[in-house]
């Protein structure tokens, strides 16, 4: 039987870990979405186990692997990625492949948020939150916990509100104290939740989207795009429809897989990685007063990769 080529894309974010396997025509053969839970190595191993079950290894072989997300470097060396790309490029590539007409990509993840402006299918400008993590998924999660609901339910609650509570959106710390104040004043829960969703959207537009021209069609993705309350808030604020792809949470992984397909590097991927033992160790170089933290990655006891050193002195430490 003819074995056909497939490509694996892994996106390890601060909160969730995503992976897809696609064929040459970008059709999804397997996909999975799990929580990172502060353990990127464990999450990737678990993810690979789950993907393996969905995947027909008789008919397909994985020849390209792309890694992205904030743990891309670590995960890239563990799975032997052929392409390691930052999440901004991966998202831009993934989204423009499935929505070639898109002009603006809004992305809100667990810890960061970004905006990508697109013209004729290529990214022409982008911005990412810098010193402030306001208006991200982590804020929504912590407020859901405060209100005693699951973060996944927030959107439905928000839609029931007809008078969203005004919540100061400039800064998460102040938003939170404002929120507590409004709770203690007796505002109904759905109004509060709708207010939180609105605060996230307006914070995003005022900070990340500052000075950027947001043109339609707008695609919204990242974990927070699953919250219909925030989607509604964006539609109200922008005055245009906001597209949320069913696979929006997978776009980074899709982008990574597509980039590995475009790259000429080929390697045969083996699922046995999930049974190997990986250890990372942080060593302080101490060669000078910079005292660089050198991260060393060991597979079954032998060093496979290290980084973090600013000069050659750090390379000797291992």
């Amino acid at each position, binding site marked *: 039987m003819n074995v056909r080529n497939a490509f694996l894309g892994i996106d390890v974010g601060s909160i969730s870990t995503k992976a897809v396997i696609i064929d040459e025509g970008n059709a999804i053969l397997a996909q999975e979405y799990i929580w990172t839970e502060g353990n990127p190595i464990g999450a990737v191993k678990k993810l690979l186990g789950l993907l393996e079950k969905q995947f027909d290894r008789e008919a397909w072989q994985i020849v390209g692997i792309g890694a992205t997300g904030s743990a891309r470097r670590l995960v890239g060396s563990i799975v032997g990625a052929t392409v390691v790309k930052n999440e901004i*490029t991966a998202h831009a590539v993934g989204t423009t492949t499935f929505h070639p007409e898109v002009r603006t990509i809004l992305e809100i993840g667990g810890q960061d948020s970004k905006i990508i402006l697109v013209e004729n299918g290529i990214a022409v*400008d*982008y911005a990412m939150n810098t010193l402030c993590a306001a208006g991200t998924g982590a804020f929504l999660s912590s407020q859901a916990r405060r209100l005693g609901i699951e973060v996944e339910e927030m959107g439905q609650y928000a839609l029931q509100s007809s008078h969203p509570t005004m919540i100061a959106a400039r800064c998460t710390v102040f938003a939170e104290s404002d929120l507590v104040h409004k709770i203690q004043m007796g505002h109904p829960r759905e109004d509060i939740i709708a207010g939180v969703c609105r605060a996230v959207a307006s914070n995003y537009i005022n900070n990340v989207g500052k*000075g950027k*021209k947001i043109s339609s069609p707008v695609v919204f993705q990242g974990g927070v795009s699953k919250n219909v309350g925030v989607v509604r808030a964006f539609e109200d604020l922008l005055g245009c429809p906001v597209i949320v792809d069913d696979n929006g949470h997978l776009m980074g992984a899709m982008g990574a897989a597509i980039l590995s397909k475009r790259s000429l590097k080929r390697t045969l991927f083996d699922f046995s990685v999930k049974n190997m033992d990986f250890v990372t160790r942080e060593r302080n170089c101490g060669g*000078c*007063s910079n005292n660089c933290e050198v991260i060393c990655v060991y597979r079954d006891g032998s060093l496979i990769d290290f980084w973090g050193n600013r000069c050659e002195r750090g390379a000797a430490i291992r």
Partner: protein
Amino acid sequence: MKQERKAALPRYGEYNCALKYLVEQGFETKCILPPPLSKRTEDLGARNSPDLVCTPFKTTLGSMIEALEAGADTIIMVLGACRLNYFGELQEQILRDLGYTFDFINLSIYNTGKKRDILRALKGINPRCSMVKAGKALYEAVQMVEHLDDITSLYYQNCGFDPTGTYPKIYRQFIADMYAAQNLAEIREGYRNASRAFAEVTLQKPQDPIRIGIIGDYYTVMDPFSNLEVEQKLADMGVEVHRLMNITNDMLRNSEKNKQAKIREFSEYSMGASSTSDIWQAQNFAERGFDGLIQVKSACCMPETDIMPVLANLSRDYKIPVLYLTYDTQSSDVGLMTRLEAFYDMVEMRKKVAH
């Protein structure tokens, strides 16, 4: 009056070679070089500074502490066109509160615009010095600054295309030569050697390389430690990195008035400090068809924050993407790499499509 004064200036990019030259040759005063900036410098500075002050304040304060630890008994602080004018006064007070004993020569006290007052301030370094000698050393130090800026800009424009890996060695040797130079002949020789060595390297540069222009505040953009070596990182990706912001371009050539006139379309009035220069430089890069602009600024830098809307207009009119980078005392460059890589990818894809 003490005979053996040991003066020091905080670290400022590689300009300390010229400052040292001026103090030693012109004022015949021993100049202590504080250790190169490190995480420790920044920690020392940040711990003893107000939290919301701009990062160069913290870095220079840390460097002053390290200079005092290294045996300096006199600190010289420069003047500037923004809050920098108040740096010296506050830093002196902080250092005194920490219990250090030292002389402090704050040039900004004499920031009256009168040349006579500046001379009087400088005379504080060594009252018995000859002003003729100081004038000569100043001229030679200025030459050194011009050579340093020239070699530095050549380095970052080309080192990304050097297949032999000799560029960094030449550059390091040149910097060492400048620190060691004792007279004008040695300065010129170091410069000639570096220029010649650069010219001997055969570069592998594409016909139309990616060119990125860097702008930013006086300190952060010129100090590789403070900007987490943003220029080197870009060059390593294969980018021709251009930076007009240096002492030669900003203080020795190009008058503020002319720059302000040239940017009237975008900004009618000066917003202080580096603002006019930055807008002018950004416009210059955009007019020359650069592929991208990067603004490198310290957190809480007011002039740089003020020009962001102007840069947004410029970006729209010239269709040039701008990446805004804000630095505080962060030591990890992971976030910076993500943004730079993404910026590079974007610029590269744009360029491909344009052709």
